[in-house]
């Protein structure tokens, strides 16, 4: 018969001590580095080392594990360690950081607000994406401020995309103000119209 029914367990890997894992983060073998990073998921003491490894790690599966373990550790300090990677020259690291900040949820609020206030418009833009995962009452005031004050068109556009999903009728006046501020920007006017169409009429939502 071709088929076998094995009764023995075949575990994926044997557990290692924290010290061994920390050392293995620098192993020449990517599989070992990934396993080590995964094993440190429950260890808040490892957070700084995990973040340091992200600065030098190039293998995607290991980067995944490093971010994943930082998220599992959780808390504002972990968010603070993840946030700087939004500034990275490497698009994949930026994306990984944004995703991790989304998963950190409330713990990342301070870090995200800092990014939303950064002088670099590209950072403000990337940070807005995190708010897509937030409940409407948390994202609305941030979006409102952007619509009223943000000078950079791409940052406004990113906020509009979140508003198409998360926006409520309370944002309509700010959207009107945004429309006034960018009267010559065809794409932005288009995006405002989409956001308004998705948010709908106050009369419609009073059902």
């Amino acid at each position, binding site marked *: 018969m071709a088929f076998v029914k094995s009764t023995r367990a075949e575990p994926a890997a044997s557990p290692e001590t924290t010290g061994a894992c920390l050392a293995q983060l620098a192993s020449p073998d990517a599989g070992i580095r990934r396993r080590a990073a995964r094993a440190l998921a429950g260890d808040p003491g490892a957070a700084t080392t995990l973040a340091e490894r992200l600065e030098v790690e190039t293998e995607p599966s290991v980067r995944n594990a490093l971010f994943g373990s930082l998220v599992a550790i959780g808390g504002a300090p972990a968010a603070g360690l993840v946030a700087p990677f939004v500034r990275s020259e490497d*698009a994949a690291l930026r994306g990984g950081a944004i995703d991790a900040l989304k998963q950190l949820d409330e713990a990342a609020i301070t870090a995200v607000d800092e990014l939303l206030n950064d002088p670099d418009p590209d950072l403000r833009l990337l940070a807005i994406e995190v708010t897509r995962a937030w409940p409407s009452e948390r994202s609305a005031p941030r979006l409102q401020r952007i619509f009223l004050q943000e000078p950079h068109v791409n940052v406004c556009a990113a906020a509009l995309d979140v508003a198409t999903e998360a926006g409520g009728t309370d944002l309509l006046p700010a959207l009107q103000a945004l429309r006034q501020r960018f009267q010559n920007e065809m794409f932005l006017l288009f995006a405002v119209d989409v956001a308004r169409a998705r948010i709908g009429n106050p009369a419609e939502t009073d059902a």
Partner: protein
Amino acid sequence: MNANLKIVAEEPEDELAPRVLVIDDATVVRLYYRQILEADGYVVEEAINGLEGLEKAMQGRFDLCIVDVNMPIMDGFAFLRALRAEPATSGIPALTTTTEAGAGDHRSALRAGANFFLVKPVARQHLSDYAAALLGRPAK
């Protein structure tokens, strides 16, 4: 422009119309490009990140990809490298869009496999002209 657009084109497709794959994680951007490209007579499909884009490119027949850089799961540069590495898709022209106007990003895009690079927000006429150029067609 009409904000209430059809999400999926329901008119019968023109077999000979060029097929364009728009890859951007922002819904409003995909809608905007769709309007422009459909008005130019192209058939448009969408993807929300590089991995979905790659799946669609590998399964379908596309004559042009328009791909953003910053996307979750798989960014635009990773998409371009994979597109060029895959025999079924390596020859598809690709137009990259990004918010960063710096020369560094321009070079990265070309190195990763883009044929051309546009800075966001993309003006309607630019998208139309460069799409036509990469499709080997006269400008509209």
